[in-house]
């Protein structure tokens, strides 16, 4: 029997980690993720898990320890935020290219500077080309569910890639919510036993990880990573299907909310999706055919499926909680990638970007409503008035 508990997003993830009982966790505290590993370290101390908890002196070391442990054949998890992730960066790439299915809880926070501890997505967007699978979560429940599914996705023999599970710092990371926690034994049987094919600790079959790889083979190894990313999408859907059968929660590559018959829609990721849904409902009550699409899988980017879900719209607004400085129009990464996806699939519709919430700036229902009203205008005129808007920044 599952139980409903009042947990914040960090505690929900720590609970998932307790149930998963990984062999090794190596992590360094950083706000707003600290509560995850702090809570988990209590589980270690109280003997609730068998995990070897490696306290390290930096995130660079945390990810390095994860890489070593994962190569050894262990099931490995970690957690970080913002500058911690930035310090890991070199090894983040090495984890992916060494094909090590490490699972990381990434509690999103703005990157310095100026220094800030509140949520935006500048941290995760920094690793978007690193070869990690990236899942986004609207709330603590989704973070909990995604962490459990991430184990299966990353460890799948056709994938073997690390997975980052994101949620917004403080808003859901520290926000108390009702979270359904499944039976420990059900989680254990869902994730199963990890049987790595090439563990370093298999001393009868000595092998080398991370050797020098020049122009004669490096490119072939990158090609393999591309294939693993391609393979990930069906695996993610299979795991989601099985998860739904077992636990009764339906996950796809994204969530479409009142989208099928909508004329205009907003694309959004993480906690803001919750606010956007109430705005959709209010505007629907007024008779506007609006909908929302919430990104769950950001890497690999499900371009074809997104275009299929959005292609019928008369206008689209994208909400980006980060900015890609110097990119086309100084827009956000989500906007740029969606725009490319639509163009590549020959779909032409007015699309505008709304950069919002940088450094944890609140996003209010009336601001999201303004975005929808802009989209309704775009649908009527067929014109994009402004490509990129910086929402609620003071002039």
């Amino acid at each position, binding site marked *: 029997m599952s139980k409903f508990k009042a947990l914040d997003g960090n505690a929900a993830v720590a609970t998932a980690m307790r149930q998963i009982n990984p062999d090794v966790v190596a992590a360094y505290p950083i706000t707003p993720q600290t509560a995850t590993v702090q809570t988990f370290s209590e589980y270690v101390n109280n003997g609730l898990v068998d995990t070897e908890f490696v306290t390290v002196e930096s995130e660079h070391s945390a990810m390095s320890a994860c890489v070593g442990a994962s190569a050894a054949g262990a099931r490995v998890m970690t957690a970080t935020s913002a500058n911690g992730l930035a310090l890991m960066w070199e090894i983040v790439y090495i984890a992916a290219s060494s094909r090590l299915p490490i699972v990381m809880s990434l509690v999103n926070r703005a990157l310095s500077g100026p220094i800030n501890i509140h949520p935006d997505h500048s941290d995760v967007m920094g690793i978007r080309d690193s070869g990690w699978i990236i899942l986004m979560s609207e709330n603590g429940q989704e973070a909990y569910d995604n962490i459990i599914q991430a184990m299966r996705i990353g460890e799948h023999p056709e994938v*073997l890639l690390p997975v980052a599970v994101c949620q917004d710092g403080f808003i859901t990371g520290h926000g108390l919510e009702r979270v359904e926690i499944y039976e420990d034994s059900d989680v254990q049987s869902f994730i199963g036993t990890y049987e790595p094919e*090439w563990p370093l600790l298999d001393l009868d079959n000595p*092998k*080398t*990880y991370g050797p020098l790889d020049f122009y*004669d083979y*490096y490119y*072939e190894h990158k090609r393999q990573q591309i294939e693993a990313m391609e393979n990930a999408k069906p695996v993610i859907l299979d795991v989601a299907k099985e998860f739904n059968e077992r636990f009764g929660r339906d996950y796809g590559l994204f969530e479409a909310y009142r989208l099928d018959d909508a004329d205009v829609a907003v694309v959004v990721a993480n906690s803001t999706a919750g606010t956007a849904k109430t705005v959709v409902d209010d505007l629907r009550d007024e008779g506007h055919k609006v909908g929302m699409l919430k990104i769950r899988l950001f890497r690999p980017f499900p371009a074809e499926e997104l275009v299929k879900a959005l292609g019928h719209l008369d206008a689209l607004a994208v909400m980006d909680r980060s900015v890609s400085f110097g990119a086309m129009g100084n827009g956000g990464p989500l906007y740029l990638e969606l725009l490319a996806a639509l163009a590549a699939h020959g779909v032409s519709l007015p699309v505008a970007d709304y950069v919002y919430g940088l450094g944890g700036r609140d996003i209010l229902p009336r601001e999201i409503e303004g975005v929808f009203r802009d989209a309704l205008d775009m649908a009527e005129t067929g014109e994009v008035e402004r490509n990129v808007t910086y929402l609620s920044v003071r002039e």
Partner: protein
Amino acid sequence: MSELKGWKEIPIGGMILEAGNAEQYETGDWRAFRPVFGEAECINCFQCWLNCPDSSILVDAENEEMVGFDLKHCKGCGICAAVCPVNARVSKKAEEELEKDDPRLCIRIVEEGKFQEVGDE
């Protein structure tokens, strides 16, 4: 170098699943300098064998003799000559620091391709 394989044929992640296959990679052509036996007689102390980072000192284990250099793998680093106690003794006897290619030494280091001495391979 053998025929290069496609991405579907090689272990993922750059893993090497075959232990000790570094031997198949011939690093000898990286060499700018090479070790050769000089005139001073080798005392078979095996200091060169012990210190060589590329396992490129050839020994006859049965007769406990140092017999030469594996030039397919030797990168010409010169550590063998630097640790050779006979070299040290010859230098001391000559009362000067000898050039590394001095023929009086036990292991001398010469520019690759410049000399070909009897019994150096």
